[in-house]
């Protein structure tokens, strides 16, 4: 009953610094944090103050727009600080772990729970915030049942964690997670698998499985939805990251909230890239150090730390914290250097989707790319390029222009319900006009949320 969907469009960007398949376990101590800014559209109302004692699963804040959605502490310990930025915007709620990992108790007997009670457990335990809904890529409303729930069991982004490796031994948790999801939707639960790769997710019962074959973004759940059963106007589907599914399953199997996850620490600037097993919300510094730390930097050089992959991740400083949903940390060199006549040079060490450089002749080579913009911002000139990088029946440039023109009918018609930032990230990478495609798309989606 499983089908293979072959995707031709897209692009694999091969980078130096893939994580070696060893896992370092990080002890639960030090500071952990939940950052409201990691959640699109969340306006936090803080429920704790410094010095409060919390358990894993104790609410730290909720979203003022939707008071039922709680964001909870991943660890037990004492609230250390509530960090604020400009205009007193809450940046992070920091908890110092006591190492005991005591959990709040929730109603977790899945067989005995009604759908409403199940939703309440998810909302109260903070696990609801792990779901995303399409359209819009925001935390779903608990009032609307999704048409279906989609999970991508692999990540095709540059240097991404090997999910088949990460999920070894999580099969029971994943199976329980699927049972939870089945109760949340009247429709089906779909799992997208990588064709030709063994994974525990292949054995999951109660979910319909599809295999995908092709370059990035084949692992993006949005691309998979598009090919399995696309989101149309008026419909809502949910997605959940496969590691988060294991965390959800864990709560209902053990009754205790255990936000342990495995993070791939990757990139050319990591001394020995490998996997780190830690509790969600750990400090970036601590996770990177657990993997062996950063390479020594020469004078005048600096490193960019990214929560996530190089295409869609968030820039972090070493003192920041991993987002709760973090699967990967990437460290690459900053590219704040001038390059003499760079645009006219052969640039053998740089990667390009275009054939005007030579990287297409050596498809196996791994590149050490930096953060230089490699040019100046221009109007859209090149055509046909964006379509090659998006394996969906969507015209990206027309969608972007509809957004810039704030033409709602066109935005809907051209498929804004089907995409989130990550789906267009490759277009942004390859854009010779250096426009901020992901930002434009998010602005468009936020406009839709506001106006529709």
């Amino acid at each position, binding site marked *: 009953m499983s089908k293979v969907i072959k995707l031709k469009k897209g692009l694999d*960007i091969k980078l130096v610094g893939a994580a070696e398949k060893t896992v370092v376990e990080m002890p639960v101590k030090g500071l952990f944090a939940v950052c409201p800014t990691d959640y699109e559209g969340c306006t936090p109302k803080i429920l704790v103050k410094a010095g409060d004692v919390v358990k894993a699963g104790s609410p730290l804040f909720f979203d003022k727009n939707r008071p039922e959605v709680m964001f909870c502490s991943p660890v037990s310990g004492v609230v250390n600080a509530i960090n604020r930025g400009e205009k007193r915007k809450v940046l992070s709620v920091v908890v110092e772990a006591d190492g005991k990992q005591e959990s709040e108790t929730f109603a977790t007997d899945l067989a005995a729970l009604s759908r409403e009670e199940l939703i309440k457990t998810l909302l109260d335990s903070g696990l609801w915030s792990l779901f995303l809904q399409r359209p819009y890529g925001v935390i779903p409303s608990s009032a609307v049942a999704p048409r279906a729930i989609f999970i991508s069991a692999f990540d095709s982004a540059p240097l991404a964690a090997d999910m088949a490796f990460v999920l070894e031994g999580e099969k029971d948790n994943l199976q329980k997670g699927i049972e939870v999801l089945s109760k949340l939707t009247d429709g089906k639960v779909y799992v997208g698998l990588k064709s030709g790769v063994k994974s525990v997710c292949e054995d999951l019962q109660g979910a319909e499985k599809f295999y995908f074959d092709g370059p990035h973004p084949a692992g993006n759940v949005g691309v998979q939805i598009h090919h399995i059963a*696309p989101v*149309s*106007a008026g*419909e809502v589907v949910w997605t959940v990251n496969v590691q988060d599914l294991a965390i959800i399953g864990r709560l209902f199997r053990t009754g205790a909230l255990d936000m342990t996850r495995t993070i791939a620490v990757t990139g050319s600037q990591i001394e020995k890239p490998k996997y780190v097993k830690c509790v969600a919300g750990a400090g970036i510094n601590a996770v990177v150090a657990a993997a062996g730390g950063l390479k020594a930097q020469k004078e005048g050089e600096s490193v*960019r730390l990214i929560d996530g992959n*190089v*295409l*869609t*991740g968030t*820039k972090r400083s070493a003192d920041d914290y991993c987002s709760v949903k973090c699967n990967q940390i*990437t460290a*690459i060199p*900053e*590219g*704040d*250097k*001038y390059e*003499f*006549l*760079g*645009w*006219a040079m052969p*640039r053998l060490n740089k990667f*390009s*989707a*275009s*054939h*005007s*450089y030579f990287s297409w002749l050596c498809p196996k080579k791994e590149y050490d790319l*930096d*953060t*230089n*913009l*490699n*040019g*100046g911002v*221009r*109007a859209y*000139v*090149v*055509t*046909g390029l964006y379509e090659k990088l998006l394996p969906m029946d*969507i015209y990206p*440039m027309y969608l972007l222009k509809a957004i810039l023109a704030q033409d709602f009918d066109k935005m809907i*018609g*051209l*498929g804004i319900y089907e995409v989130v*930032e990550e789906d267009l*990230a490759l277009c*942004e*990478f*390859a*854009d*010779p*006009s*250096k426009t*901020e495609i*992901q*930002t434009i798309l998010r602005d468009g989606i936020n406009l839709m949320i506001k106006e529709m």
Partner: protein
Amino acid sequence: MKALRNFVDKIKPAFSKGGKFSALGSTFEGFETFLFVPNTVTKKGSHIRDCVDLKRVMIVVVLALLPAAIFGMYNVGLQHFRAFGDLAAADSIWQCFWFGFWKVLPIIVVSYVTGLAIEFAMAQIRGEEINEGFLVSGMLIPLVMPVDIPLWIVALGTAFAVVIGKEAFGGTGMNVFNPAILARAFIFFAYTSQISGDQVWVEGLVKGGALDTFSGATPLTQLADGLAPAALQSTPMDWFIGTIPGSIGETSFVAIMIGAALLLVTGVASWRTMLSVFAGGYLMGLLFNLIGANDYMLLPAHHHLLLGGFAFGAVFMATDPVTSAQTNCGKIIYGLMIGALAVLIRVINPGYPEGMMLAILFMNGVAPLIDHYVVEANIRRRNNRVKLVK
């Protein structure tokens, strides 16, 4: 390079806002980014970016134009020496090239200086960075001119194309019509005698003194005048190599194809557009062969592709991503129509010996309409899905 960088850094403040030469800020910035790729890093979105930028894209097109330009210079000399009976010089490749080089270079310089001056000024007024688009237009314009064109007309045509054709619409990326074709069309309608007829295509012919047996008419002019294909002075092999009178860069099919190969391998030009222009022209030629009402209609279809500006237009002008259709499906329709229209104008309308320029201009105008229907079809597919679900 360090010394140059230090020098640039030293003089930079004078050109920045509030500096002594801030009125030249955009110009300075243009030259600085030409010399050094800026040290700007990504702020939002994708942290790494492709090393391709518009400078690279444009320079590839300029490189692709070089074979046609170099052959054009050679051909200018060749035609001149042939016309004036200097057969020894006509046999020397270097003599022909040098003669042509010194005739063509001023046209190229005038085109670039006029166009870039306007672009620099407009960028300063708008407070934007200088756009690279004119790097290509500045090379295209000389190559579609006859060698005897007065330089002031080149300057005027270029200025018209840049100001009215491009800047009035908002600059590179916003223009509806291809600036180089617009320059040619402007000159064609404003100064017809300087860009058409039997004299202008060969250097010196207007002044007189050439051999009586030499005709400076292009094959297309002769065909339009009713000459039977068999009675032409030149052979299809001459058309293929390009040793015939004509616009500077348009005559050599083979030189243009070298450029086309570069554009296609690098992916800078769309193979869909290019191929479908040739296909459209060929099919229209075949259709005329079938009708066969006069000598011109009987010209073998593939000969149309070798003659005049057809190949040049198909490879370098129709593929301009800004003014062509932008959807893949639209590009095929757009290309087929250009090819068909160009041959149609040639054969049916003797007033215009060459139809390529008008065909591309017309289709530039129609391209957004083609795209509109392609995009509407996409929207309809999506809307139909909603109806199916309900």
